[in-house]
């Protein structure tokens, strides 16, 4: 695994991030938008781990950032799904275009 140049892993993480961006802009269902955000967070995690492993192997900073990002992503997903379920109760839909009662 040490033979793989770190640039290639970074290209993988760029690709995953922009796949997430594409999904976030095309989807209108709130849960699928949340899934696109999870993809972007995963690409950031890959980035952190690669920089830690290849550029600063004596430190553990990237590893800890990855751990905290995973923790905060779990909290964020839980809160987002609670909000989505509440929206579904009120509007009977989770399409982001139809929830517009606060739109000016």
């Amino acid at each position, binding site marked *: 695994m040490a033979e*793989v140049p770190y640039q*290639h892993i970074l290209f993988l993480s760029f690709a995953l991030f922009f796949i997430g961006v*594409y999904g976030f802009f095309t989807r209108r269902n709130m849960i699928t938008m949340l899934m696109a955000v999870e*993809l972007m967070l995963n690409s950031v995690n890959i980035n952190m781990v690669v920089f830690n492993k290849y550029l600063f192997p004596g430190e553990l900073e990237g590893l800890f950032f990855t751990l905290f990002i995973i923790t905060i992503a779990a909290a964020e997903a839980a809160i987002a799904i*609670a909000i989505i379920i509440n929206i579904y109760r009120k509007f009977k839909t989770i399409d982001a275009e139809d929830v517009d009662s606060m739109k000016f």
Partner: protein
Amino acid sequence: METGKIIFYLISIMIVIFGLLTVTTRKLFRSAIYLLFTLINVAALYFCLNYEFIAAVQIVVYVGGIIVLILFSLFLTQQAGLDLPKPSFSRVALAASLSVFGFIFVFLLFYFSSSSLEVAGPVEVTMKAIGTQMLSFTKNGYVLPFEVVSILLLAAMIGCIAIAFRTKENG
């Protein structure tokens, strides 16, 4: 070409393919399952990089927690078997051009600046070092973020219950 390299390229191809399927398929449950495969492949990538602890956390939290949460909320909010409506062409064109140009921009930025980065040799990360630094309160210790994030998780848990609690007037 060695085995480690071949495995890495296989994993990265699978990550990209399943990621694309996650954001393009119009069946919601399949989309969640493709996301599951993407996350498992990311965990496999961490295993390849010798970050076993991160891989284990990825499997436990993402695959075991977030995917199950997403699947449950899909069951609660979506009539089973209904496809998503097709996104309009202008939106697809906008999103595709945005992400392709963004990718090319970052690629070029990285391509022309990466020669200055110095690559150090990879070393093993032991579980003992992770635990020691995580709970150390000296310099470079992470005990304060650790405690803060535990408060955050408690607050998120209480917040979820408070948000999703069914009251009389809106239930």
